[in-house]
């Protein structure tokens, strides 16, 4: 029982973590209309920072070491890393959103992620190159004297509490005046600018919040694996998160949970478990990864609004007087060309 149960809890952990990750991408991409192809970069930055903040100081020796070494408790390192990553995301946004249209922005974002990925492989002073960060402490494990399996169960609960809080925050932000400005920018940035909203500033704010969510997800991934290095991530993995958003339903908070669960259970963690325990060959896993592409095409073609569609909201709905309208929003409108 216990091996399968451990796998099951790990899978639940991944579902929760990717729910958080897709909530962030959903805000930036489907609610503000920015094609943030560098999203996985923020996941990685969050993971690295969580590790760097919670590891003790190690002097640099043979290319392995840790310049920082704040030795913070893991539970504190995670939100701190997320705040720093959010600021980093706002900085990146401020530099690139200033001048670029959607398709060029997408290309530049991938290029930025690739440059930083190469940097993380080659630079040995900051993040130890290909060795990466190892022995990232398990938060709470030392205090409670529990083994790694018990810790996984416990930390899945911690991640779930985080996810519920972040879900509630996303819901609140989405229904707030700021959230309405985000959607207005997505639907037509010129109109949003005409009614006096500073489109650029709101886009940067959206990127910052997205970066925070990505970093929380990344921090959890690094803590579960207790290590983080350039082979733990690739810039192109952002496609999986995009697929979760599209399959779940752009602009829908609960849809993100559906998308994350579907991909993690059926296409990523599930096949990995089956391949390593029953088939003893990685082929099945690779085919499942290829199938994610097919899933995305089919989902976008036959159900572009996703599993849980975003609902149009009227003014009366915001005032609590009537239920949301049932019409769904065409995802084709989700990203509007910047003037």
């Amino acid at each position, binding site marked *: 029982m216990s091996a399968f149960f451990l796998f099951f809890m790990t899978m639940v952990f991944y579902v929760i973590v990717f729910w958080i990750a897709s909530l962030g991408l959903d805000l930036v991409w489907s609610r503000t209309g920015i*094609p943030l192809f560098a999203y996985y970069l923020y996941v990685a930055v969050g993971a690295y920072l969580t590790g760097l903040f919670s590891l003790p100081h190690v002097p640099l020796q043979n290319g392995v070491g840790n310049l920082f070494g704040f030795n913070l408790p893991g539970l504190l390192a995670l939100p701190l890393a997320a705040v720093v990553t959010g600021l980093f995301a706002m900085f990146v946004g401020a*530099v*690139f959103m200033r*001048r*670029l249209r*959607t*398709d*060029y922005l*997408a*290309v*530049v974002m*991938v*290029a*930025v992620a*690739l*440059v930083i990925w*190469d*940097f993380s*492989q*080659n630079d040995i002073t900051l993040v130890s190159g290909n060795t990466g960060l190892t022995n990232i402490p398990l938060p709470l494990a030392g205090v409670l004297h529990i083994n790694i399996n018990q810790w996984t169960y416990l930390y899945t609960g911690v991640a779930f509490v985080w996810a519920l809080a972040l879900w509630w925050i996303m819901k609140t932000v989405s229904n707030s005046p700021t959230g309405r400005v985000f959607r207005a920018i997505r639907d037509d940035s010129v109109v949003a600018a005409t009614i006096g909203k500073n489109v650029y500033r709101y886009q940067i704010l959206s990127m910052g919040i997205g970066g925070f969510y990505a970093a929380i997800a990344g921090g959890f991934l690094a803590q579960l694996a207790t290590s983080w290095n350039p082979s733990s991530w690739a810039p*192109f993995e952002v*496609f999986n998160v*995009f*697929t979760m958003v*599209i399959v779940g339903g752009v602009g829908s908070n609960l849809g993100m949970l559906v998308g994350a669960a579907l991909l993690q259970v059926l296409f990523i963690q599930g096949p990995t478990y089956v391949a390593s325990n029953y088939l003893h060959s990685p*082929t099945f896993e*690779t*085919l499942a*990864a*290829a199938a*994610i*592409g*097919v899933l*995305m*095409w089919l989902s*976008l*073609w036959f159900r*572009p609004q996703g599993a849980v569609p975003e609902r149009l909201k009227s003014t009366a709905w915001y005032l609590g007087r009537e239920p949301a309208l049932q019409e769904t929003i065409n*995802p*084709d*409108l*989700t*990203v*509007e060309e910047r003037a």
Partner: protein
Amino acid sequence: MHLFWIDFGTGLATAAVVALAATGLTLQFGITNYINFAYGDFMGLGALLTFALNNQAFHLNFWIAAPIAAILVGVFAVIANQLLLAPFARRFSNPALTMIVTFGLSLFMANVATVIWTGNTLFFRMPISVDKKVGPFLWSPDVMIVMGFAVLVMVMIHLLLKTTRLGKMMRALSDNTSLALTSGIDVRQITNVTWFMSGLLAGLGGIALAVEEANLTVTSAESYLFVIFAAVILGGIGSVYGAMLGALAIGLLTETAPLYINAGYKLDVGFFIVIVLLLFRPQGLVPRLGRS
């Protein structure tokens, strides 16, 4: 100085590879106006099909297998466009969605290729060619053939675009789709021809890359995708001659860069050029007249 000229020669060889691939990418971008992230996998497919014909099935001579593989990639590009990319591009006006679809195609092709050809390093079955000194440069005969072939292809593309009716139609379509439609050009047919040429050039570029590097893996071409973007953007997106010039510049820059910086950052020179150019000069160094 001696080392510089050897790297300069390697740069010319890389420029030949990038020129083949960049021309194909820019031709396709000129008519579709979205960026194909699966282009690196088209290149990889060319090299892998050559490997299959050369080592696995038929055991053809490399120089016979290569053109067959490139033509197959061209056919594959037409089919991929007809079945997948064109329907999505027609239905969703938003280019970011079409880009995500091409992203999916890239993921799909890379993973299926890994299943078929494994993740190991593969080698073509061809005589080992020893580097020869040519002036200050150091090239193997195979690389010299690839470079000569690339120049020949560039001249042929020039002649096709400038002297034939087909080339004129392709240029017209690239400049203004609705005007081309009103003057009676069969847009669908020209689009197919363009995708075929794009795939063909991608295949040739991928094969040339494998010859230059003397080996191939399923992902080796993918990492060159943004270097090819750099050449395309440097020359002005959609401009064929710009892409050729851009390829020359990018090839020389990436190969001589290791003399001055960590060799691990070789390809980042290309990525960096993409970022800086799109930020400050998105029309490229040689802007096309009459296009906004």
